[in-house]
């Protein structure tokens, strides 16, 4: 004997089950669930030895607004002050520079790396929305906006995460777009023109032109835009091992030059003749491969990752990251962390221009060949089920070639790359209520 199956009985069953369990039927899908507020706060103190200091408070609020649907809002504020290399090469005599605003001058002593003082503040807000589309498909959306005195940025991204293979495998695809505007203090310099010759004042009709002459820059602000595409796969290999592989491709175009960086022009004896505003290519095509493995020991967790990056400026970089989470009883853990980073120089990087002015030139040391080692340690304490705090310290030592083989004349005697040492301290507190 076989009966025809009852068709759709589930709705009646759901209502009856709610009544049995004394649950409000309107919230059947939630089963007595109360959505929590997750608040994360942190303060980051970052300090470069003899250079920049940054204080960065962060506030993040996350809330589940539907079944598996999350909304996150994050606020970040940066207060930056200190001194940063202006790009000019050290010299055997003292050098005098005009500040970016054009209103003052500063002097760098002989043999010292020229640094320019600055202060700035940046405020950023970002919103993340995570929305499940089906049992195996999730979507994530992000919008972000940031602003500082001379720079504003807005961006958006979307990604899809698809669980396959009984959820042992997750496939990811994402797209992001960014639009930035730079409005340099003191005006927009003409690229590769002599410093101080042709600054277009902005915002201030009384701004003093240091000198008049030279070409015009055609406006007080410039834009750049970027897009990025990402594909990835995350695989549960064993109960204890998770592996992730991502590839991303991105392209930036527009004004990629740093309006505050200058390049020394030297003669064959290495003596400075002039300073030019730097110029970078108008496009940059970027590629990144990223591999990460997380291995769970009975108590501890090991993270190993490797990132390889290459772009059409000829920068190739490798990052190796090792993190070990050492569980100390049930309420504490200690997380030592090591990172090694190395990169090759951009093809238009130069410490100084000798002879003809090339099509592109920058002496920004961040585009030089360099290596860095970072050691970090984080300590975290779970106070109760709903709150925890942590404290982390990172020390980084960045090195480069101070005496490159192609240095000319007197520059052979100068340290063209100065080591950079940075220390950062992060204190964070998280709670749910």
């Amino acid at each position, binding site marked *: 004997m*076989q009966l025809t199956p009852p068709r759709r*009985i*589930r709705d009646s069953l759901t209502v009856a089950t*709610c009544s049995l369990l004394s649950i409000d039927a309107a919230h059947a899908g*939630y089963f007595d669930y109360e959505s929590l507020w997750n608040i994360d706060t942190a303060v980051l103190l970052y300090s470069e030895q003899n250079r920049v200091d940054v204080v960065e408070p962060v506030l993040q609020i996350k809330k589940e607004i539907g079944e598996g649907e*999350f909304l996150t809002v994050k606020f970040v504020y940066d207060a930056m002050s200190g001194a940063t290399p202006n790009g000019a090469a050290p010299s055997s005599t003292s050098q005098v520079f005009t500040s970016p605003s054009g209103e003052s001058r500063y002097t760098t002593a002989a043999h010292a790396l020229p640094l320019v003082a600055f202060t700035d503040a940046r405020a950023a807000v970002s919103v993340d929305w995570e929305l499940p589309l089906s049992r195996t498909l999730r979507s994530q959306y992000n919008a972000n906006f940031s602003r500082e005195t001379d720079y504003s940025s807005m961006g958006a991204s979307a990604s899809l995460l698809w669980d396959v293979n009984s959820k042992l495998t997750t496939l990811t695809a994402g797209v992001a777009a960014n639009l930035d505007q730079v409005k340099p203090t003191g005006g927009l310099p003409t690229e590769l023109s002599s410093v101080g010759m042709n600054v277009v004042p902005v915002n201030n009709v009384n701004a003093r032109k240091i000198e008049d002459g030279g070409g015009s820059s055609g406006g007080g602000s410039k834009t750049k835009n970027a897009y990025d595409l990402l594909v990835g796969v995350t695989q549960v290999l064993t109960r204890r091992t998770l592996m992730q592989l991502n590839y991303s491709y991105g392209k930036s175009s527009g004004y990629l030059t740093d309006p505050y960086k200058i390049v020394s022009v030297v003669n064959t004896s290495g003596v400075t003749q002039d300073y030019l505003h730097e110029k970078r290519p108008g496009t940059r095509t970027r590629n990144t491969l990223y591999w990460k493995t997380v291995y769970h020991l009975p108590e501890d*967790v090991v993270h190993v990752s490797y990132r390889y990056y290459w772009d059409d400026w000829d920068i190739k970089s490798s990052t190796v990251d090792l993190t070990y989470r050492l569980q100390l009883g049930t*309420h504490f853990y200690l997380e030592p962390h090591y990172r090694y980073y190395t990169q090759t120089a951009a093809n238009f990087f130069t410490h100084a221009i000798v002879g003809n002015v090339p099509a592109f030139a920058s002496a920004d040391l961040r585009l030089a060949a360099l290596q860095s080692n970072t050691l970090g340690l984080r300590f975290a304490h779970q106070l109760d089920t709903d709150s925890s705090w942590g404290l982390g310290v990172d020390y980084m030592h960045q090195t480069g070639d101070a005496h490159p083989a192609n240095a000319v004349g007197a520059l052979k005697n100068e340290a063209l790359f100065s080591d950079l040492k940075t220390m950062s301290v992060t204190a964070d507190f998280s709670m749910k209520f």
Partner: protein
Amino acid sequence: MTAITLEHRDDYWLARFLAMGSPCELLVDTGDHVLVAKLAEIAFSEAKRIEQKFSRYRDDNIVHLMHHNHGAPVEVDDETAKLLDYADLCYRLSEGLFDITSGVLRKVWKFDGSDRVPAAQDIAALLPSIGWSKVTWRKPHLTLPAGMEIDFGGIGKEYAVDKTAQLLRAASNTSMVINLGGDLFVTGRRANGNPWRIGIDDPDATGQQALAQLTLARGGVATSGDTRRFLLKDNIRYGHILNPKTGWPVHAAPRSVTVAAATCVEAGMLTTFAMLQGENAEKFLNDQEVQHWIVR
């Protein structure tokens, strides 16, 4: 002293205990073992309370009273009334296939892997004692004809899972999984934002091989079917899912059905219904649009 053991696993605590004749587990997403001990005690007490209240094997509970009142009405408490209302609705939704009076068939069917299939006349002799329609249920009074029995076994474990989960949620916001003998409920996403990963056992290799892995942020999972409970005679396999109308095993019932739903009770009832549909189990669950796994 209660027999609860606590173990610290990779990144959660695991409490184990025995209740309702099954191994039970409580997984707590915390590092706080004091909290785990407290929650495990709550889970153990609630599971034991429901077991004792609705067990057929005790002489001090409401079920015993129903069975020994010689056809006179019994006034039941609110919790029992709700379960009877639920069983009544399930009887109607399943067109009589889910019947809490069918437990008496156990007197002749012993699914021990042997070939002892009961005689047709012994089965037929029990049929007059089966049938929810013969019971008078006027809340709060239940009148059970003499010789008939009520068996909450088809709902009890899943009901205990959901009730226990409610108490646990009231006691802590921490994400937990309460698992009573394979029927379970997940209270919420873990602190790191991830769902729990639940392995669904292959019924032929219980505890050794997972049939599928399910990620669950919240909700209930129940499994029906036990491949070790059957009879085999003249090359015919008799599974343990019985049709209360005939007294014989349901033809072509799946070996195992697992369903994930908003609550464990709902998941459990859908697995039972699917089993009772026999060869139409797949179609039935597809029509319900629930996440499910069927082993044939």
